[in-house]
């Protein structure tokens, strides 16, 4: 948690937010299963990216596959269920 206010004096004067939740809330800690991608079998349909409710799948710049943001992925498993190539596997967190 970055810049978490300690008292009301740390809060902004007006109800304006500092920044988005990306840095402050690492929701990846909620996970029990984590998705692992095998990009060699990826068909580049971006269905996993399209259905991710946590914006945690990033398409690689060169378009060769996807990358998972483990800081925020909650491990719901939608990507693994929807992947037509079955190249995303859910493995238990250690």
């Amino acid at each position: 948690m970055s810049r978490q206010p300690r008292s009301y004096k740390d809060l902004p004067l007006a109800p304006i937010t500092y920044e988005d939740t990306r840095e402050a809330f690492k929701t990846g800690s909620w996970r029990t299963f984590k998705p692992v991608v095998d990009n060699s079998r990826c068909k580049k349909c971006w269905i996993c990216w399209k259905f991710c409710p946590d914006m945690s799948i990033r398409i690689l710049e060169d378009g060769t596959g996807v990358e998972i943001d483990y800081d925020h992925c909650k491990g719901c498993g939608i990507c693994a269920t929807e992947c037509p190539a079955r190249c995303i596997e859910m493995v238990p967190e250690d």
Partner: protein
Amino acid sequence: MVKTPVPAEENVAPGHMGCPGCGACLALRLALKALGKRTIMTVPACCWAVMPGVFPYCSIQIPVLFTAFETAAASASGVRAALDAKGQKDINVLAWAGDGGTLDIGIQALSGAVERRDNIIYICYDNEAYMNTGIQRSSSTPIGAWTTTTPVGQTRAWKSEPKKSGVEIMAAHRIPYTATACVSYPEDFVKKVQKAASIVGPKYLQVLSPCPAGWKSDPERSIQIGRLAVESTVWPMYEVEDGVYTVRKPAKKVSVKDYFRTQGRFRHLGEKDIEEIQKTVDAEWELLLKKETMTARK
């Protein structure tokens, strides 16, 4: 740049407080992809009033006005009036509310805004109960469903009243554009939101958002469940544009039972109960197809 099936722009940041597998998170993500940065949204009490995170952080990256439960449509009308007074014409005004805040508590404000022909987009993400406060029944909860206020016990007190149809209510207001959508069909949803944004006047969309916590379903099956809802015609996908109905027929048809068996909230229903519901669903689907034929443009 990689070509993506829906716009690549993201206006919702990760790290929000939605449950794993939440349909409503996906719904807002897709809606804001369609509308873009030039949008102001108003959110009444609903799941999305909690999900943006704790002040002073917010995961929605456009201006948001958090308002009281019944005022989603009224506050959106106000924002539009202010923009009109300032002469800013190119900004979308979005009211984003849950099914309770739309069809129970906020319905008079919505009805008023639509009747006044305010130029707003109203999207109701329908998770079929008051999920944020602990799964209480709403008028949008389907018949037969378990909720905490329609608990299932020896008296069989599950919800015995059918679901209220928001889109039909809006069609009766002679609204320029109203449609149902489902998060399992993102391209279709994005297209409908973009179409709504291109029309002047009130627009109403109702998007089915599977809720793993309240529907007692597996988070990884949220998208499949949405798809089954459409294929079983429990959640028909249709648009009403100036009174003209356009129905999207599912590629394959499945039974209501197949849809119900994916969710714990319908687990108590016996064969006979499901058969009854199947009959109602079939009759409603027939009626909808008839409406499409009757209103078709010559």
